[in-house]
């Protein structure tokens, strides 16, 4: 581990610091990926796919993995260390602007979905007193203290063991309720429901592309993050399926029900722990969306207002009727991967063309 190495010279110290910051930045993106994928899986795919939900989610992750690989291929061909640099090298100024507009828009859509999920969890799930807007303003105000280009990734990096411990406690509490027939029937409700679920969720892997926005630490291979995220998601999906039969999974109606299902039948203590875990991860993911959207929008310049602007937009989105907003976001979320796929293909072709010409 680089950050634990004995460092002597200023150069080594600087490199170690950069590596540590890179790891913290990656922690933030990984958290955002896991929250985004699980949120879409639990709220959009679960009621449709039922017992097939675990493998349908993995299937829906594949287009995202493919786009990730295309972008990584283009980065490798151009020798660019980051996604935005690759866009600039492949598409010139247009690519630079594309990164500054497209990625913030995607992050804002994802952030709005997470924000709606969190606020609806408060208002309709846990039953916290307060209206949607007042709770959104409160959450936004608290998030204002957390938005910081360096501070937020560090906070996520420091909290990762706490989050993991809470998740492990939930996982351990599920072990006694595991029934292997939870995976049956393999096709869930049937072919039509599976197709509907795939249509609703084929874009859910789009945040994987964000894994390419930071320079990778020397000790970490690109595929490691991908495997880690897929592994964490798979474990959660399997635990949900193995502890709840299809009949219960498809009976989930409404946004908070899907999010609360993993802890719905747990003991009071574990349920409370699960709610805290949900709240904290959503809170950090919303912060990550706003921060990254702001960072992309200001194209690397050291100004903080775009992140606060993004947070303001996300908070303001909660003024809309939650169910209508959620339905609208559902339609948008279906197409989040499409612009990224087009950009990835274009960049790869341009990079390959340049390589062939050389």
């Amino acid at each position: 581990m680089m950050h634990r190495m004995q460092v002597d010279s200023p150069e080594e110290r600087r490199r170690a610091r950069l590596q540590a910051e890179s790891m913290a930045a990656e922690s933030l993106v990984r958290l955002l990926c896991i929250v985004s994928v699980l949120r879409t899986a639990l709220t959009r795919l679960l009621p449709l796919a039922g017992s097939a939900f675990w493998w349908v989610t993995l299937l829906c992750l594949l287009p995202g993995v493919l786009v990730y690989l295309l972008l990584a291929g283009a980065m490798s061909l151009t020798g660019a260390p980051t996604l935005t640099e690759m866009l600039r090298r492949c598409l010139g100024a247009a690519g630079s602007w594309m990164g500054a507009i497209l990625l913030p828009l995607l992050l804002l859509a994802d952030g709005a979905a997470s924000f709606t999920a969190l606020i609806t969890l408060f208002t309709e799930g846990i039953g916290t007193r307060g209206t949607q807007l007042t709770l959104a303003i409160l959450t936004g105000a608290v998030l204002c203290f957390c938005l910081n280009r360096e501070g937020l990734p560090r906070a996520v990096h420091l909290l990762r063991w706490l989050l993991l411990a809470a998740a492990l406690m939930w996982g351990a509490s599920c072990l006694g309720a595991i029934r292997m027939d939870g995976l049956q029937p393999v096709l869930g409700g049937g072919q039509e429901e599976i197709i509907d679920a795939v249509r609703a969720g084929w874009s859910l892997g789009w945040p994987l592309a964000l894994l390419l926005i930071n320079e990778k630490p020397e000790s970490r291979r690109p595929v490691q993050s991908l495997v880690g995220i897929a592994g964490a998601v798979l474990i959660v999906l399997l635990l949900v399926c193995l502890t709840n039969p299809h009949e219960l999974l498809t009976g989930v109606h409404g946004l908070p029900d899907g999010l609360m299902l993993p802890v719905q039948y747990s003991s009071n203590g574990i349920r409370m722990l699960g709610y805290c875990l949900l709240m904290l991860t959503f809170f950090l993911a919303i912060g990550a969306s706003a921060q990254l959207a702001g960072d992309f929008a200001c194209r690397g310049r050291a100004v903080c207002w775009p992140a606060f602007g993004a947070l303001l937009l996300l908070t303001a989105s909660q003024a809309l009727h939650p169910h209508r907003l959620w339905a609208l976001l559902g339609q948008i979320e279906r197409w989040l991967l499409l612009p990224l796929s087009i950009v990835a293909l274009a960049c790869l072709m341009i990079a390959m063309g340049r390589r062939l010409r050389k």
Partner: protein
Amino acid sequence: MRRLMIVALLGLLCAGCTALPAEERAFAVALGVSREAGEWTAHARIPNYQKAGEYQTVQGTGDTLEAALAALDASAPMQLHLGQLRLLILGGTLGGQAPISDALTIMQQRQDLRQEACLAVTDVPMEALMEALRPAAGTRLSKSLDVMLATRVEEGTVLTAMLSEILRMGERQSPVLVRMYMDGDQAAISGAWLVDAGGIVREALSAQETQLLSLLLGQLRSGTLTLPEGVIRLTDAQVQTELSTPTLQSAAVRMVLRVNGAAISREVISASLARACLTLLNRLSVMGCDALGLGRQAIAHADSMEHWHELNWPKRLREMDWSVSVGVE
């Protein structure tokens, strides 16, 4: 300082947003729900906060279960909380009228409902049963009920019927509920109530029959087992239930028991137990009660829920051909 502020604010989010401290809540230990002549009644047994070690019953009535629960909340001296609930009792007439899932779905909407609460059925008047719920040992009713339930489960005269388990059975298994009745002026727990495929509470099982069912479910592994010929002492029991494939028309139960110093011969134990189990299994089948959870094996033969419904499992279960073999060592 800034980090400290962030942690403090995150801590605020993690903290409960509860409006009332715990000492200002009435924690129900038992909740009874019954329906008589179209009117729902909900009873709750809560501690008497004026006299230590004593309990009081509060009740609410309404045209619907939701209305009865709302009336119950209103009649409680403090805000009613179900986070310490040990027993959720369904009145006998309610059990035989509508699927228990209807009532449970409504109950489930309460976020404070304790999922480890035991689901019981009674055919005695709910008010009398509630009043009879008093601590048999110590001063806490919750502890007393915990001990009583754990003892009966260990004996095999009661099956674990936790709310969280029952709610998660789906269409694959029928729940077997705890039987509550009055023994003199004391509330007693022993035996079981069977639920059919439609979720309707049908028949009661005696304590001996429940012991057999507990043995078949693999929950009773050791202890005393009462047979018509006498009592045997089990030291170990291995039970395997297998559904025939692909016909799904017959099922075989293979049981291997270890018995300690029985006065009855092994052949007699084997024959008597096989006969008793077969009678019980046929009774369960005819009623459409899949207490053993054979549906969990059967659903593996369906690739989708559509196919599963085409298989018509409840009908197949009613016509199930059972065979039981008992080996005694």
